[in-house]
């Protein structure tokens, strides 16, 4: 089942063509790793797919409710208040009920149990990243877009995140994450797609 698709996407900043993607398709239960150098267009693509920016040309078609598509940026923002308040934000906005078992598991996996009562503004980059990832996962999205989520994570957190994403994949979530380099072997499954100067050839095997 196709949850997110794009056709003939282009994004221009003045005369510069920052993104030129002919087609793209994210299906339920798939993981895609978007690999490219700095300035290659990874963030631009993810922001457009996440509905945060408009393409100059082309369109993005969602096969799911907009509320079930979540983007986590490479500099995660925590709202004023405690980590607990931040974690519950998305759930409350969606009027979802909190599953305490899931909260406990995600908090333990991402090693944020000891941070729950802390002021979000006092956390380090890595802690912010982990809280933002947990906050997104608690909303149980059907499509998760992660912009360089591994940048501030230690090895243990990376493995825990990979395990959680794999679990969600089996439940039907589609995920696309960006990285400078392909993650270590076996850490994330799915297709590795390269983007260079905004151009991304989409592999035929990844489409539905």
């Amino acid at each position, binding site marked *: 089942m196709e949850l997110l698709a794009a056709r003939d996407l282009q994004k221009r900043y003045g005369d510069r063509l920052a993104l030129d993607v002919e087609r793209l398709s994210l299906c339920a239960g798939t993981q895609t790793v978007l690999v490219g150098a700095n300035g290659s267009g990874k963030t631009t693509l993810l922001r457009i797919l996440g509905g945060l920016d408009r393409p100059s040309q082309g369109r993005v078609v969602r096969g799911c409710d907009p509320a079930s598509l979540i983007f*986590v940026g490479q500099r995660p923002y925590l709202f004023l208040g405690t980590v607990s308040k931040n974690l519950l934000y998305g759930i409350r906005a969606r009027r979802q009920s909190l599953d305490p078992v899931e909260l406990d598991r995600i908090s333990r996996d991402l090693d944020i149990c000891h941070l729950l009562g802390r002021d979000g503004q006092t956390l380090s980059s890595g802690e912010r990243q982990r809280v933002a990832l947990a906050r997104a996962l608690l909303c149980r999205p059907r499509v998760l877009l992660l912009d360089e989520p591994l940048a501030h994570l230690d090895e243990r957190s990376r493995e825990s995140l990979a395990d959680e994403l794999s679990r969600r994949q089996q439940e039907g979530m589609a995920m696309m994450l960006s990285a400078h380099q392909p993650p270590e072997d076996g850490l994330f499954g799915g297709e590795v797609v390269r983007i260079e100067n905004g151009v991304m050839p989409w592999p035929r095997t990844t489409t539905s």
Partner: protein
Amino acid sequence: MTPLGSAVTISLTTALCASALCALVGIPVACLLAIRDFVGKRVVLRALEALLAIPTVVVGLGVYALIRRDSWMGGLELLFTPQAIIIGQFVLALPIMVVFCHSALTSLEREALDTARTLGVSWGRIARTLVSEARFGIVAAFTATFGRVIGEVGVAMMLGGNIAGYTRTMTTAIALETAKGEFGLALWLGGILVAIALGVNLTVGLLRGAERVA
């Protein structure tokens, strides 16, 4: 009530009502300008910025033209009432509220808006979240709005008519007492006006400091 007490009460009542109305209308308008894109948005923002410098007597004149007895709103009999002063002060200070709130909202990090948009679901919740994130700036906008309306004289004089015990504010009383040569009362009123303005700013500053420390 003494003339001094009544002028202080009328000034505070009209200024607080006008500031509250400005907040009620101005904060949602600022959110709309900060979050949504629409045709003519830049023109609206430039126009609001230009209106920051509008003279109070011009606002008084404009509202006077609307509510004078033989105008289309004349039947409401608003002229020379406290309500007329509130309407004039609202028109005068609304651009301040909108421009300052918009500035506070847009000075949040881009990631704040992104996170609110991706997690917030509805525009109402996104706006509430951003207002909460920018609350220090929005309180400052309210303070600036209040400061503008409590100290203005043109609107209060033209639309209120300076009627003792009814529409005589501190500023119009100061103007009148000075013209009469009663410098003592005018100085007292001026002192109270400055104390109120400084007191409001000081209280807001202390509250902000306390919240940041907490």
